[in-house]
């Protein structure tokens, strides 16, 4: 009578694996509890708790526990002291009474599900949309990770796109396919974001307009994505993870599209400075890349930076922040923060109009705050010296600033600050570049670079490193575009080094950590501006700060 359903299974077992005399179901159950904490009751009444390691499946069913300890003392003598942890405990079949494993899912789903959660995170980068997470918790987690990865991806794509041009299209198509799978909401969001872009673009014809629109779009998209994700999480649960992956992807696409569109307008406008156009591209890239790369944290950071410019951005910042922290509750505090930053930024805005003054640029820098800038700056320094002059020549107004220019572009792009500056009518194309001036100014006097770098690196922490990575790419590209012949040789070596850093940073960066850093980073940078006017004094102050591991490398490069 018994076991007839599995009679065939047992036969199969015996034929296929003659070594095992146990039924397949028992072996399966055994496998299901491997690596899980179990209570083992033995003959004398003792209970050992440990991690199920393995079992003997030959004739006798003995088991092995890892990290076991005696949780209930039996009546017979035992050489195991209470509370002592036994690295490996073998319980022979003769002593075994019962193995109890709590909360087990006795099916492949259980194991697969649990593991899937873990795997997903690792794998996501490769195939984000396909993974299903069974557990809500994990889904959120993996979800975050996915974001990261996707963003990184996006950054990479962006880079590729700029460098190669073709890449972005492909990625877009893929994304689109996924989108179709996605909810219609996704499309709606996409549309809305595009609208926002158009509006912004319409209002501001120039690059500034474009930049802003990008920033806005970015924000909007992220917002939307977050909303979607939230809704998805609530409603779908496991499926949400896949959706999030998709949604994330989208932003990247949009960006590419935006980027291209933006670039075109600039060229069409036929601004006097062709070099500027090139610069603009890098700038555009940077903001997008930064957003993508930094994931939630980054997005929030960007939003804050962009806030000065657009009212909307503040909202987006909030949304992004909330999402990063996981859902709604955090929003209020976040919003407050953003508002604070916003206040700070306004000041920046005011300053920004006066491009001529190096100081004005500084405010923007603080907003940027994110660490990413630092690495760029270091790189920038060598380049700037050679390049600055040339570019500046094109711009009549800026002759004094030339050196500054180059570095700034990189920086501004990453921050999205550039957008804010642009918003002010005066700057136009130049606005983004003007900011760079400040940095350069700092760098030039310092040359050492390291001092400056440190502050940023500290503030940024891990999350920022990830950002930095992206930036560095941007810088490289920007440098390539901008730099005449002489500049490049210097840049190339730097570029090579950065990519490595980026990889590490990206992997290390934790989304959760990022949000707090933002605030801190934002504030610190602000402090810096004051220093900026007086170049030398600020540096010493910065030096005291401990330098992260990565800094040492930078310093070496700089020196």
């Amino acid at each position, binding site marked *: *009578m018994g076991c007839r359903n599995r009679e065939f299974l047992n036969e199969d077992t015996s034929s296929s694996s003659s070594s095992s005399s146990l039924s397949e179901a028992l072996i*399966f159950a055994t496998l299901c509890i491997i*690596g899980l904490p179990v209570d083992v009751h033995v003959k004398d009444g003792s209970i050992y708790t440990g991690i199920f*390691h393995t079992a003997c499946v030959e004739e006798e069913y003995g088991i092995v526990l890892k990290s076991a300890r005696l949780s209930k003392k039996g009546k017979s003598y035992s050489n195991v002291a209470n*509370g002592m942890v036994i690295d490996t405990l073998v319980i022979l079949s003769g002593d075994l009474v*019962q193995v109890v494993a709590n909360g087990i*899912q006795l*099916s492949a789903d259980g194991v697969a599900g649990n*593991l899937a959660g873990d795997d997903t995170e690792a794998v996501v980068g490769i195939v984000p949309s396909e993974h299903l997470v069974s557990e809500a918790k994990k889904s959120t987690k993996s979800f975050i990770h996915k974001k990261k990865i996707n963003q990184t991806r996006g950054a990479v794509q962006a880079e590729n796109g700029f460098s190669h041009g073709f890449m972005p299209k492909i990625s877009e198509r893929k994304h689109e396919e996924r989108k179709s799978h996605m909810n219609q909401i996704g499309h709606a969001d996409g549309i809305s974001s595009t609208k926002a872009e158009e509006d912004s673009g319409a209002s501001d014809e120039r690059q500034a307009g474009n930049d802003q629109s990008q920033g806005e779009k970015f924000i909007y998209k992220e917002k939307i994505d977050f909303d979607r994700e939230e809704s998805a999480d609530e409603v779908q649960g496991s499926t949400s993870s896949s959706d999030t992956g998709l949604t994330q992807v989208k932003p990247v696409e949009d960006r590419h599209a935006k980027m291209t569109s933006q670039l075109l307008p600039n060229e069409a406008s036929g601004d006097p400075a062709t070099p500027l156009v090139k610069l603009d591209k890098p700038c555009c890239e940077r903001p997008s890349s930064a957003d993508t790369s930094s994931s939630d944290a980054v997005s929030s950071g960007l939003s804050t930076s962009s806030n000065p410019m657009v009212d909307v951005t503040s909202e987006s910042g909030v949304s992004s922040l909330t999402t990063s922290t996981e859902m709604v509750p955090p929003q209020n505090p976040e919003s407050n923060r953003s508002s604070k930053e916003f206040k700070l930024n306004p000041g920046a805005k005011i300053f920004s109009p006066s491009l001529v003054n190096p100081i004005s640029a500084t405010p923007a820098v603080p907003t940027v705050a994110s660490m990413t800038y630092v690495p760029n700056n270091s790189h920038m320094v060598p380049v700037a010296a050679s390049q600055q002059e040339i570019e500046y020549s094109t711009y009549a107004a800026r002759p004094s600033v030339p050196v500054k220019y180059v570095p700034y572009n990189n920086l501004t792009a990453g921050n999205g600050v550039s957008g804010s500056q642009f918003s002010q009518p005066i700057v136009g194309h130049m606005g983004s570049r003007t900011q760079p001036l400040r940095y350069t100014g700092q760098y030039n006097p310092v040359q050492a670079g390291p001092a400056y770098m440190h502050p940023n690196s500290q503030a940024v922490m891990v999350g920022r490193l990830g950002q930095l990575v992206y930036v560095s790419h941007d810088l490289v590209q920007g440098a390539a575009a901008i730099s005449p012949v002489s500049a490049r040789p210097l840049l190339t070596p730097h570029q090579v080094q950065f990519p490595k850093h980026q990889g590490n940073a990206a992997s290390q960066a934790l989304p959760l950590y990022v949000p707090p850093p933002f605030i801190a980073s934002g504030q610190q940078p602000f402090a810096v501006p004051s220093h900026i006017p007086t170049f030398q004094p600020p540096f010493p102050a910065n030096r005291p700060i401990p330098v992260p591991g990565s800094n040492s490398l930078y310093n070496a490069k700089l020196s």
Partner: protein
Amino acid sequence: MAMDGSSNNNPEEFPVGCLLSIKTSLGDEFDAQLITFDRHSNILVLQEGSKPGPRRNIRLLKANYIKEFTFLGHGEDPLDIKKCQLDLTSLQAREESAIRQAETEAERIGVGVTSEAQNIFDALSKTLPVRWDKTVIVVMKEVRVSSPYLPESVSGGTPAANDRVKKVLDFERKRLQNRGGGQ
């Protein structure tokens, strides 16, 4: 249909999926569904709880330790053969992480110390890096706090570190006291 058995002579006669109420010779008592019975090892694989859910308690029970059981009814085969595929590497990964976690937790538990000492250790660990050296709490790798874990029993380390540990210890002891009194 109830078959009250004072013996476990024929558990294999029950079909897979049947529901049993079991008393073991060690005094455990539970209701469970039979997943399988393995004759060679004389082991019953049971899952507790009657309602289907993703998380169940699994018991592997030697049949000869069943003191008493009651047949409660028939049920479906709880195992879906199509889903019986496991990834060994993921199992290993799960085990590794579990062991790692267990080890880190085990390191936090003092051997042969009072619960008060353990509480102090846990409290200190919130603010300072601590580890056990037998019954001595080692803080920041240099300051040693030995039984009875009073500020006076702090020794070693730089004066600054020593003072710091004393301060924290004093503070944590007061907090523990207040908490104990409050509750």
